[in-house]
């Protein structure tokens, strides 16, 4: 549960972990039901309406001004978004 919290970047309190764990277990059991009918011969559907090859031409379109890009920034400096020190390495 804590690991899921890390993956989802949500700082869960001990109370939340306990509460959620209980609820999740019930839900997850119920969901195992799905595997009853999801046999290997059934293809998965990820898009309800089959479409393909949807593209746009390589032309500059509607973009944001610099001000618009930063207009909701919680913190910025030098025209860039500012964040506190990063722990992890670049991907």
């Amino acid at each position, binding site marked *: *549960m804590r690991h*899921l*919290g*890390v*993956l*989802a*970047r*949500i*700082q*869960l*309190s001990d109370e*939340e972990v306990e*509460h*959620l764990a209980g*609820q*999740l277990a*019930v*839900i*997850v059991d*119920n*969901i*195992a*039901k*799905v*595997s*009853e*009918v*999801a*046999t290997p011969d*059934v*293809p*998965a*559907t*990820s*898009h*309800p*309406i089959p*479409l393909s090859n*949807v593209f*746009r031409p390589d032309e500059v379109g*509607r973009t*944001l001004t610099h001000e*618009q*890009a930063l*207009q*909701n*920034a*919680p*913190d910025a400096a030098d025209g860039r*978004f500012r*964040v*506190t*020190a*990063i*722990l*992890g390495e670049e991907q």
Partner: protein
Amino acid sequence: MSDVIRLTAAELAAALAAGEVSSVEATRAHLDRIAAVEPEIHAFLHVHDGAVEAAGAIDRRRASGEVLPPLAGVPLAIKDVLVTTDMPSTSGSRILEGYLSPFDATVVARARAAGLVPLGKTNMDEFAMGSSTEHSAYGPTHNPWALDRIPGGSGGGSAAAVAAFEAPLALGSDTGGSIRQPAHVTGTVGVKPTYGAVSRYGAIALASSLDQVGPVTRTVLDAGLLHDVIGGHDHDDSTSLAEEWPSFADAAREGARGEVLRGLRVGVIRELPDSGFQAGVSASFRAALAAMEAQGAEIVEVSAPHFEYGVAAYYLILPAEASSNLAKFDSVRFGMRVTPHVGSTVEDVMAATRDAGFGDEVKRRIILGTYALSAGYYDAYYGSAQKVRTLIQRDFDAAFAGVDVIATPSAPTTAFRLGEKLDDPLQMYLNDVTTIPANLAGVPGISIPSGLAEEDGLPVGIQFLAPARQDARLYRVGAALEALLVDEWGGPLLDRAPALGGVR
């Protein structure tokens, strides 16, 4: 002119065109109504201080002789899931408090271009996760029919606003029933279009493969008029369908003229026995079917054996997609930022922000979704759920081979009390059992009022489903039944709603 708020959008549009009332007058009347009833209803998160100005601009254009689109000058409420440049967009969450989008949602832009007057942003379950609007970070909305009851969710604000005559039209979004179920519990009309029929650009994403934007209104004709404005291909949304659509307002008018029901084959799903629903809901459903039969419709039992797996599949697909869609709320580029202590790393800030900014239901679904997609669980959970989608689509295909529309009650119960189901998420999820299949399969659905439940006098809705791309069929059938029922009742169902704010 306090009557102006009781007009349907179609009637108001006609009055505006005929010069009987100005848009400024109509807008002011609705703003007054909002001020009067909002303390009880709380449908709005934000009321637009530019509404009267926008209305004035429409009036000036009309006065100059310009020919305006049909709905020009009619006020419109907008679910807070749709981003707007001149009003904050929060999606019912604290994490987006005060967020001002630099672009309008496509449907909002189209509404403005059609001369509709945005009145404000309506309340909703946080990030559209919920069936009661109790999960809004800004407090619940109250059902105009009974203030201690839920208005439905996630779009309870839009439905309540329309039911309380605070707006003649509203925009909503539907991922698992969030337009149709609130319509059911508030005695209004709600439509979920075919997936891809209306642009999702600017709708804050919940589950990308399930979300659709649609109209929330008091009549089927009004829904058709609004759908005509917002629908159609959008090159900013890759999943938007390219076809030309017929006029849904015309389809509604055709339906109201009367011959649509003769010979219409209406499917009732064996595996969704309404006998398991609240008695009054089931009775109202059956009565509506009987009324259709009396006009020559044929009621046919159809089988959809995989519908019973719909809720389970939905509650895997939705959290999975949502957990990814909500990752962008991380304090960096917009939204809330919580810095737990001096020297916090950005990872700390992200985690603290998300813990503080998201409510419990959202956190629950993000965690569940993260789990469903995790290494080792993908095939068993998310992957399997996508297979259930295929099976449900096949069920619909098979059913529609023998019937024109499928009918179900829009939800198992009438509006339950605020707080009643909060501690039992599983119970809450079962509200969506009749509405979820349409989202999984991408087919369109409409909910129209079918009457009041005998045991509690609360509204009941009947849902019709049609094959993908046959949205017009829903408007024809919906308008036909609506005409029958309104005639039987001697007036719209909402006439019987209690008075609010001391003003009728």
